[in-house]
């Protein structure tokens, strides 16, 4: 083996070993790397009340209600499998809309209602002008933002 | 432009400052190194 060959294999081998190590570490830590849990995961995990975490999903269409003074918003977050009731006091981000993604940070109350302290809007990967979106909706070709 | 124009404009400004700064500093370094080479009598080889 020429020295060049040897160095080539050494470099390729080291990168492969490091890649495997990184994969193992990231797989082991994947529960901590996720930014939020879905309602289904929350149901599986039995998270104790008052523990802070983030929950993400879609704002269920038609579920948003506001208190008369407009300060308190109640809505449901769904992953189409399970649904969690959320209550939030404060200003909502612009992109907070029914049917759109949302990430809420807060904790579950003993009544099973998620009390959110912070709401982040999640937008999907579709970009188009308003006329196109309208035309798609009118012709019934609208696909849901999420699979 | 909408109410968020300030974010859009700052984003383009940030890009201009960083990328423009890179270009200006690259040109300045090139000229400085060339001057130092010339001062040592080492003209650039074509």
């Amino acid at each position, binding site marked *: 083996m020429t020295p060049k060959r040897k*160095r080539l294999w050494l*470099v390729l081998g080291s990168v492969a070993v490091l890649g495997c190590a990184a994969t193992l570490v990231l797989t082991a830590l994947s529960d901590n790397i996720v930014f939020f849990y879905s309602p289904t995961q929350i149901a599986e995990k039995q998270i104790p009340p008052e523990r802070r975490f983030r929950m993400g999903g879609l704002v269920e269409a038609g579920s948003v209600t506001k208190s008369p003074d407009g300060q308190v918003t109640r809505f449901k977050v769904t992953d189409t499998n399970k649904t969690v009731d959320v209550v939030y006091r404060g200003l909502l981000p612009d992109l907070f809309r029914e049917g759109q993604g949302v990430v809420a940070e807060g904790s579950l109350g003993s009544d099973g209602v998620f009390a959110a302290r*912070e709401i982040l809007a999640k937008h999907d990967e*579709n970009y188009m*002008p308003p006329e196109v979106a309208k035309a798609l909706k009118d012709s019934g070709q609208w696909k849901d933002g999420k699979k | 432009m909408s109410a968020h124009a300030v974010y859009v404009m700052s*984003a383009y400004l940030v890009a201009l400052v960083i990328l423009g*700064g890179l270009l200006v500093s*690259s040109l300045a370094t*090139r000229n400085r190194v060339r001057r130092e080479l010339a001062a040592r009598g080492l003209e650039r080889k074509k």
Partner: protein
Amino acid sequence: MADLHFLANPARFRRFSQRVLPSLAFATVLMLAVGLYMALIQSPPDYQQGDTVRIMFVHVPSAWLAMAGYALLAGLGASLLIWRHPLAALMARASAPVGAGFCAVCLLTGALWGRPMWGAYWVWDARLTSMLLLFFLYLGHIALSRAYDEPERGDRAAAILALVGVINLPIIKFSVDWWNTLHQPASVARLGGPSIHPSILIPLLWMAATLFLLFVLLVLLRTDTEIDRRRLENAELQA
């Protein structure tokens, strides 16, 4: 003899870069003018995000170039460590700050996009965190390559860092698929084709091509300078 070998490739590189740099600069300026018109005036607002979507036209190409730049560093690192290519170390020194610059643009414009759309400048989700890590890898590369008295040792240490850090690239790309993130999934490079309407996709690709030219321009220009600088250092050593 060794000195001649060192100059062989750099000399050819220099002839090449001097021939292309003027037309490259001209093309970049021209494309940037058209690109900015498309990005800021001609393209339509997004149905959800309105005009804020225009940040995408600098944010996304910067992210691509920051990642491509690191892939370049890794390739140059391998070519230095394995084949001892004389130009690789100089080009790596020249391109690391360029990649870091594009990475900074990506992070900052992302923050300015996140605040109005998500409601936060920054969150520690997997995509944003791995992109920040990329920026620190760039800084580490720049620092390592300058950390030794003999530049060759710095070049090799930085090359090793570039190869180690290349593992971060697939993590950045697939972070949005592997873990729940606040950042949305891929829109352009994805199975099933882009999910961006052509009226927004074309300005995006145009700006990507423009910034790519700027990236190449900066790397060629700075590599040229690094060749001169190395000659200067060699002359000082001999003096």
